């Protein structure tokens, strides 16, 4: 597409003014306030027109209108253009920018309206390029600020490419969109972890809580219905129990009414028979009792006694013949028997002792055996063989006093003395031995204790041996005195002779002792015998056997024993008297009893006759006849008594039935009871009006009352439970609504999450794919021009598919350099190449889009300007380039570089304030 001419019918400051453009490069030059921006806008709007729609439009549209509506005729805002399409068609397009009505595109050759091909509310020729109004501006137009941005910030180059790749530059980059979506997901959905607090988790938690509340509400509602049914069941059970109870009460009332009715009927019958109380037979009761007593007494009288055996008189006769009991012993007294046995025993003992033993001989010298033996011992030679050894030992000790052994020596001496003492003891010299031994022991101890400190042990030993020597001396003197004593007594001095004498003396002593013992025993028995005889005499005396000498004692004893036998015989005879007396007493009692019985029978018979007389029976009859008559009388009276008692019982029964009232009152009560029973039974099923036959009705009623009360209580409890549940019962419908609301919110957030996730996935994939496709296109496009525009400095270009970052290959080194690191001028050139490449890529219809450049060299130095202009001029060989500038250097370059008819220069003049430009500027060719 090439724009051949633009006619501003009414646009900004222009009216009916044309701008002709060359097919190659056109430089529209003019100072400030010459209308360059207006022409720039007019060119674009002539191609695209404005969107048709209600309302004030977008901010950009409002700004555009504000700047470029005609200053003096704001209602008319029109621009036209003639376009040369690459398919050969020539199109005139008119844009009614104010009303957006008189807009159309016409094929010049055919004169046909082709607006429909590009209609978007209004004709938009950008559609022939595959663009729209917005993307036409961002794809076709390059302004000063974009160039400046690329120069100032290397990243702008990449961002521009990304934006163009994403939305043809109209909107955000894909990365920005993705970041925005990610942030929105974070804010509007959030994470789905347990600890998260974002909308999704919150919605889930609320839905869960609402579901739980709904479940609880449904469960409680089910329990409520269950409780209501339980109350109903309890109420029915209580009612049934009450009906059962009321039926039982009615039955009881009916029964009681029947009973009272029966009482009344019975009372009426009794009253008919007994107008008053019946006569009483009580007056005859006493006579009847006495008759009965007399009759019973006679019947029960004792049988008459029949006495047999001897009479009392005979027994008395026999008793009178019985002797008196004896005065003495009837058997030997024990004291006599014992004394007699003692005397006999002693006499036998004396006889057994026998005659006296032989008298002993006298002892020689009148000495006893021990004295003789002691003397013999003293006379024995007691020269001790150890004495010499002892002395020798002492002598040796004296001679061997050695320093340092005093203690040992002293102890040894002590022990020697002790041994000497022992020898003396063994030698029957106990006193001397004990003395010597003790001395030796003391000596050994003292010397042993003190010897350590005494140096003169020999001296001390000498002193210690003195007692030993003194004992030996005393032994010698004792023998000498024994010799003198034996001699003096005329006794032999030989110890053996003395020992024999001692034996003889001992035998004599033994015989003397035996004789003395016999004599002593004989004397004792004799004394005891005397005493025994005295005791026997005394015992006999006690039994009244006196004056008997001891010599006749056996006779006396025998006489006593004979007397005892005689007395025993007398006693046996006397004892029969006692038996007779007992028999006499019994006989007399029996005879008395028989007499008494006879008297009682006579009395009873008299009484019987008497009472028989009282009741009109002949008392002259015999007892049996009287008794028969009495029995007949009693039988007759018993019948009368029974009839009387029956009458009395009925009377009493009547009184009991009336219970103090009258028969009429009782009958009225029966009627009332019957009526009450009927009332109680009214409305009750007949089946429940019953009482158990085989159990206590009162107990039955009590049981029914307890059951009824219990069931009433159960009903009250169930009712209370139901009432309590009612007060707290949640509304299931509201719980369902809350759950539905929470679920709807969860579904909304879940759906939102799914939508965002799907969008993000698609966007990321689209970005990756488009960048991957676009990168080589851009690289080829840039690389095609790069050697020319860089004057051979760079040979190739590369574009990163991920980020669209551009790198160029340095010709001198062959290294790849990031385009962002290149000089500002080079970046500007590459940017222009990329824009052209992008425009070529975005235009999808086969048309070539023109390039509208507005002051793109304003900030560049002379060299950069020339480089940029050279690039643009080269690009114009393939597409139309329209450059607006106020720069004289650019104008000078154009005048030098541009060539007709491919190129053109349009010089704009300043617009006078208040004036309207009308065809006052004609296209000027270069």
């Amino acid at each position, binding site marked *: 597409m090439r724009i051949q001419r633009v006619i501003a019918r009414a646009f900004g400051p222009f009216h009916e003014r044309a701008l002709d453009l060359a097919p190659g490069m056109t430089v529209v030059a003019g100072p400030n306030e010459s209308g360059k921006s207006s022409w720039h806008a007019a060119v674009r709007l002539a191609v695209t027109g404005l969107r048709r729609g209600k309302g004030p439009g977008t901010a950009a549209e409002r700004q555009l209108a504000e700047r470029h509506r005609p200053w003096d005729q704001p209602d008319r805002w029109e621009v036209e253009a003639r376009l040369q399409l690459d398919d050969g068609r020539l199109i005139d397009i008119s844009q009614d920018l104010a009303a957006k009505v008189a807009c159309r595109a016409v094929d010049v050759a055919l004169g046909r309206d082709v607006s429909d091909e590009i209609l978007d509310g209004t004709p938009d020729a950008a559609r022939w390029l595959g663009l729209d109004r917005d993307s036409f501006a961002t794809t076709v137009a390059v302004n000063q600020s974009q160039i400046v941005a690329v120069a100032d910030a290397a990243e702008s180059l990449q961002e521009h490419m990304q934006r163009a790749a994403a939305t043809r530059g109209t909107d955000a980059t894909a990365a920005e*969109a993705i970041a925005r979506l990610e942030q929105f997901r974070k804010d509007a959905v959030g994470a789905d972890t347990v600890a998260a607090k974002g909308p999704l988790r919150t919605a889930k938690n609320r839905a869960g809580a609402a579901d739980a509340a709904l479940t609880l509400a449904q469960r409680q509602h089910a329990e*409520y219905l269950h409780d209501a*049914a339980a109350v109903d069941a309890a109420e029915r059970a209580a009612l049934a129990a009450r009906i059962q109870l009321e039926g039982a009460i009615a039955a009881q009332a009916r029964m009681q009414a029947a009973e009272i009715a029966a009482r009344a009927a019975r009372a009426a019958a009794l009253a008919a028979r007994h107008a008053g109380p019946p006569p009483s037979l009580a007056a005859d009761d006493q006579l009847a009792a006495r008759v009965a007593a007399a009759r019973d007494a006679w019947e029960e009288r004792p049988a008459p006694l029949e006495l047999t055996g001897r009479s009392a008189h005979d027994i008395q006769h026999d008793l009178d013949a019985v002797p008196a009991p004896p005065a003495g012993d009837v058997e030997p007294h024990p004291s006599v028997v014992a004394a007699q046995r003692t005397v006999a025993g002693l006499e036998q003992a004396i006889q057994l002792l026998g005659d006296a033993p032989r008298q002993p001989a006298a002892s020689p010298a009148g000495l006893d055996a021990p004295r003789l033996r002691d003397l013999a011992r003293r006379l024995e030679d007691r020269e001790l063989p150890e004495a010499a050894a002892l002395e020798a030992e002492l002598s040796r000790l004296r001679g061997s006093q050695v320093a340092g052994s005093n203690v040992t020596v002293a102890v040894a001496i002590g022990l020697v003395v002790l041994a000497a003492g022992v020898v003396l003891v063994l030698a029957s010299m106990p006193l001397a031995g004990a003395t010597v031994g003790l001395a030796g022991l003391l000596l050994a101890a003292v010397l042993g204790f003190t010897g350590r400190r005494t140096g003169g042990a020999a001296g001390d030993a000498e002193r210690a041996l003195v007692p030993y020597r003194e004992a030996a001396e005393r032994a010698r003197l004792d023998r000498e005195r024994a010799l003198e004593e034996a001699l003096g007594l005329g006794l032999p001095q030989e110890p053996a002779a003395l020992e024999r004498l001692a034996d003889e003396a001992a035998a004599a002593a033994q015989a003397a002792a035996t004789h003395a013992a016999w004599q002593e025993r004989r004397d004792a028995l004799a004394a005891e015998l005397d005493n025994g005889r005295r005791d026997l005499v005394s015992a006999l005396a006690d039994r009244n056997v006196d004056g008997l000498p001891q010599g006749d004692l056996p006779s006396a004893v025998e006489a006593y024993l004979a007397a005892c036998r005689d007395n025993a015989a007398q006693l046996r005879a006397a004892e029969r008297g006692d038996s007779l007396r007992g028999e006499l007493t019994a006989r007399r009692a029996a005879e008395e009893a028989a007499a008494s019985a006879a008297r009682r029978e006579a009395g009873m018979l008299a009484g019987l006759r008497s009472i028989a007389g009282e009741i009109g029976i002949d008392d002259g009859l015999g007892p049996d006849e009287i008794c028969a008559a009495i029995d007949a009388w009693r039988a007759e009276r018993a019948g009368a008594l029974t009839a009387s008692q029956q009458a009395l019982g009925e009377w009493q029964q009547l009184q009991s039935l009336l219970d103090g009232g009258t028969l009429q009152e009782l009958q009225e009560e029966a009627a009332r009871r019957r009526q009450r029973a009927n009332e109680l039974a009214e409305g009750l099923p007949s089946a429940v009006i019953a009482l158990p036959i085989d159990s206590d009705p009162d107990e039955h009623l009590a049981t029914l009352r307890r059951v009824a009360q219990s069931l009433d209580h159960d009903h009250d409890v169930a009712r209370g439970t139901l009432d309590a549940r009612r007060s707290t019962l949640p509304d*299931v*419908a509201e719980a369902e609504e809350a759950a539905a609301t929470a679920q709807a919110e969860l579904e909304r957030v879940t759906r939102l999450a799914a939508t965002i996730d799907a969008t993000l996935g*698609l966007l990321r994939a*689209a970005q990756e794919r488009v960048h991957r496709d676009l990168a080589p296109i851009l690289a080829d496009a840039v690389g095609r021009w790069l050697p020319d525009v860089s004057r051979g400095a760079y040979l190739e270009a590369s574009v990163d598919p991920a980020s669209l970052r551009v790198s160029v290959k340095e010709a001198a080194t062959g290294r790849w350099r990031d385009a962002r690191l290149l000089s500002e001028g080079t970046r500007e050139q590459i940017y222009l190449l990329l824009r052209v490449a992008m425009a070529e890529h975005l235009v999808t219809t086969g048309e070539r889009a023109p390039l509208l450049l507005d002051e793109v060299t304003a900030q560049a130095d002379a060299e950069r300007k020339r480089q940029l202009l050279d690039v643009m001029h080269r690009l114009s060989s393939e597409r139309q380039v329209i450059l607006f500038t106020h720069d004289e250097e650019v104008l000078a370059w154009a005048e030098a570089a541009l060539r007709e008819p491919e190129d053109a220069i349009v010089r704009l003049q300043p617009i006078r304030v208040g004036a309207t430009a009308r065809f006052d500027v004609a296209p000027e060719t270069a």
Partner: protein
Amino acid sequence: MKLLLFADLHLDAPFAWARPETARRRRANRRETLRHILALAEEERVDAVLCAGDLFEHDRVTPDTVAFLQSSFARTDRKVVLAPGNHDWLSPQSPYATVDWSPNVSIYTDARLTPLPLADGLTLWGAAHRAPANTDGFFAGFRPDRGGIHLALAHASESSLLGWQEPGKQPHAPFEAAEITAAGLSHAFLGHYHLPRDAERHTYPGNPDPLEFGEEGERGAVLVAVQADGSVQRDRRRVAVSEVHDLTVTIDAAQHATDVVAAVSDAIAPLTGCVRVTVEGELAPDASLELAELQRLGEHLDGLVVRAGEVRVGHDVDAIAAEPTVRGQFVRDATEQITDPEQRRRVVLTGLRALEGRPDLEVA
């Protein structure tokens, strides 16, 4: 003999779409509707008020509703005959069984037709649902055991009408219309179908107070005059308390959100009660459809539900798809890969809005 028939009041049924206060108001309206029915019965001095089931919802009925029903029926002088339906099915725990109803209330308790003499020679046969589902038909094989005119009251589904009812309707106690005649019944008064129907031998009064948006037909209570030959004359009476509107607002002309708001606001401004608005049409690229924002427009209403209907994307998706850009590739991929039109619309709009740098990234 004059009868007043109603059914499917569904006391205590929820309104999942509504705010809590709106839902409560709607439930209160249903009670008020019953008052209207009973008042109409008094006014017309009918011989009996017949309810063909679903008077309340067994799983949701509140103690207060039970007390309301008990006292309402006790206050009327009319005879009240109730046939439990599948929503108020009769169980030992049902209020039908546990409440001490006033003597003027008769409740069918058998799952087969049982008689209730209405007058000499006129018998009203009825049956109860004893379970929430799987109740067999009542009329097949039935024959009255006595002479006279025979009518029926039940909650049952006439098979040929099922397709005309709202989606998801189950054929509880199904029957064929011919079974009524075959059974010797002069007429059957029925519940279950909310869409009203006056057939020759049976009548569905429909739900007397609106339950859902979009309900059509003359729903309410049916005043029935039973003729001597058993035929009936029917007079439908409106007894509803709730006012419900179902609107569609087209937003083709809307260029931005303000236009959408204005369109919806204009549509609902003259209305009262509960309104559902379905937004349809092509949404301009720069406009956004904020349902939550639109929901706030119904402050003067009992309830407002705004939903997106067939809202088309205002972007020239085809043109965008032709772009050799990320945007174009994204639209192409979305079009190819997402089969669900709604999800595709949301994804495309979300992506385009993100590329446009817009903050309104949640698409209704």
